């Protein structure tokens, strides 16, 4: 082993350790940033090590790529608004999948039929997973960005078609491994993977995208790991596996938080129409309340709990919430925020938005912590959340969301719901909460309503 090789190997080894340390840092907010610095340093080392690789003949194109990527990366990193995080994540998984797939393709181009079974298998996985991730993530991005309609796109025989597609990809893969000389099989597999990515994600509703994104994250990671096997490179295997694990765990956590199986999310076309049936009971009068009434209630409460949901994100109302909360606090009201694990459109979505608005995380409470406090809460303010506070999930075992843990705002002394109209949540279900005597509705865009509430409180 020459000194250079030793150095390169050393950077990879160090990078592996630094990645693990980096992710470990994320176990506490206090150590998270430092952890990320370690990971960044690891990445830098690995890149420097790679640049010394003997196989590299010319650097110009590498530099072009690095510069172009950095420019776009910096732009995206600095200017993407926090509310657009779900889309951004989807888009960058697309890039990740693309990169992995392209490396695989070019390796195959280069060695073609001379690859051994092991390498072909690894490359096959790489390209398959990379391809699915690429197109699947693009569709997820389009849905979240509302370039295509967010609701599930369903047609007859969909699941059968997808299954067929998947099996043919698998068959082609096996044939390729058996006869690597038939290079067309490789390209057929690429095409199938790309198509499968599209068709897999199309029928899934926008609000279920987070699960899909996490899964695609996991695929992207596994594609990197496969690259690692193909190149015999451990840091790729480690980093890829860590990512794969992360995506997998997050998708499991989300499914648990919705009490739905991963199959239901992927193939259930959840949130598509289904008007009627089970929610017959949820009729009645909605009690509309005025801004002044609510302001008085809030100002004289002992404890107020804000329950943000997807509507807060679309209305970009996080700062308005925080302002109202500060006003209330200066009047001696105890303010807390209740964060449901699947509120919004990605895991931790609400936490990030509120952090952006400067809400300290000691005021954010998880489901299990806040529910016992509900009966002693004077006012629960639901800001553009719907499914995550739907008592049907708890009370009606026949409901489509039965068994999903909810934030039990209906146990509070008074509930105020901020929403624009009679719109439903992602699930498409009616929410009996809105018809309960304890609930008052304040219609209007969440941000506008909150700003008006704040002025009203100020004038009290």
């Amino acid at each position: 082993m020459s000194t250079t090789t030793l150095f390169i190997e050393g950077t990879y080894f160090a990078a592996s350790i630094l990645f693990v340390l980096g992710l470990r840092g994320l176990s506490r907010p206090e150590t998270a940033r430092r952890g990320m610095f370690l990971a960044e340093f690891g990445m830098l080392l690995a890149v420097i090590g790679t640049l010394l690789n003997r196989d590299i003949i010319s650097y110009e194109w590498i530099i072009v790529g690095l510069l172009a990527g950095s420019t776009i990366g910096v732009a995206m990193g600095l200017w993407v608004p926090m509310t657009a995080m779900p889309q951004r994540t989807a888009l960058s998984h697309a890039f990740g999948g693309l990169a992995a797939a392209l490396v695989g393709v070019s390796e195959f181009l280069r060695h073609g039929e001379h690859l051994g079974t092991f390498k072909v298998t690894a490359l096959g996985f790489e390209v398959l997973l990379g391809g699915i991730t690429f197109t699947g993530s693009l569709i997820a991005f389009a849905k979240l960005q509302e370039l295509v309609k967010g609701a599930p796109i369903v047609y007859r025989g969909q699941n059968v078609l997808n299954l067929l597609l998947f099996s043919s990809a698998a068959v082609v893969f096996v044939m390729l491994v058996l006869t690597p000389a038939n290079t067309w099989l490789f390209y057929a597999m690429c095409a199938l993977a790309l198509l499968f990515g599209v068709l897999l994600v199309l029928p899934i509703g926008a609000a279920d995208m987070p699960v899909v994104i996490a899964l695609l994250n996991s695929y992207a990671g596994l594609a990197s790991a496969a690259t690692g096997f193909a190149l015999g490179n451990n840091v790729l295997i480690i980093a890829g596996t860590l990512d794969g694990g992360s995506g997998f765990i997050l998708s499991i956590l989300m499914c648990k938080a919705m009490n739905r199986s991963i199959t239901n999310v992927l193939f259930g076309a959840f949130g598509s129409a289904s008007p009627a049936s089970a929610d017959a009971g949820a009729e009645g009068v909605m009690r509309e309340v005025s801004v002044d009434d609510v302001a008085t209630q809030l100002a004289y409460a002992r404890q107020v709990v804000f329950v943000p949901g997807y509507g807060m994100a679309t209305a970009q109302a996080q700062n308005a919430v925080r302002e109202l909360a500060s006003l209330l606090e200066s009047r001696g009201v105890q303010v807390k925020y209740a964060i449901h694990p699947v509120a919004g459109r990605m895991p931790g979505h609400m936490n990030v938005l509120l952090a952006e608005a400067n809400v300290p995380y000691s005021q954010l409470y998880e489901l299990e912590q806040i529910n016992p406090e509900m009966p002693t809460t004077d006012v629960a303010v639901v800001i553009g959340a719907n499914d995550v506070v739907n008592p049907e999930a708890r009370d009606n075992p026949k409901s489509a969301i039965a068994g999903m843990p909810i934030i039990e705002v209906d146990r509070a002394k008074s509930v105020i719901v901020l929403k624009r109209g009679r719109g439903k949540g992602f699930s498409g279900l009616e929410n009996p909460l809105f018809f309960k005597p304890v609930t008052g509705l304040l219609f209007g865009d969440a941000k506008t309503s909150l700003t008006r509430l704040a002025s009203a409180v100020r004038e009290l």
Partner: protein
Amino acid sequence: MNEVLMAGLYVFVLAAFLGYQVISRVPPLLHTPLMSATNAISGISLIGSIVTAGAQYNRVSTILGVIAVTAATINVVGGFILTDRMLRMFKREKGPETK
């Protein structure tokens, strides 16, 4: 080749276990930064792309390599910047109002 495979499998399995342990300790509070962090880290495929882009095996390979380098770099740079931007926002206690 089989020894490389075996070694790779050990690394893979250990990393999978380790990933499971480490990630499941990340609190829900930080799940969004986690997604963006793993996204940045998955940009490690950069090191495969760089070689492809620079080795000049043939023209197509180089073009694919450059695209791959660009895509992976976007993830690395964008991902880390974004993660840090988010993490900077998380504060335990009330800081001075910054509005």
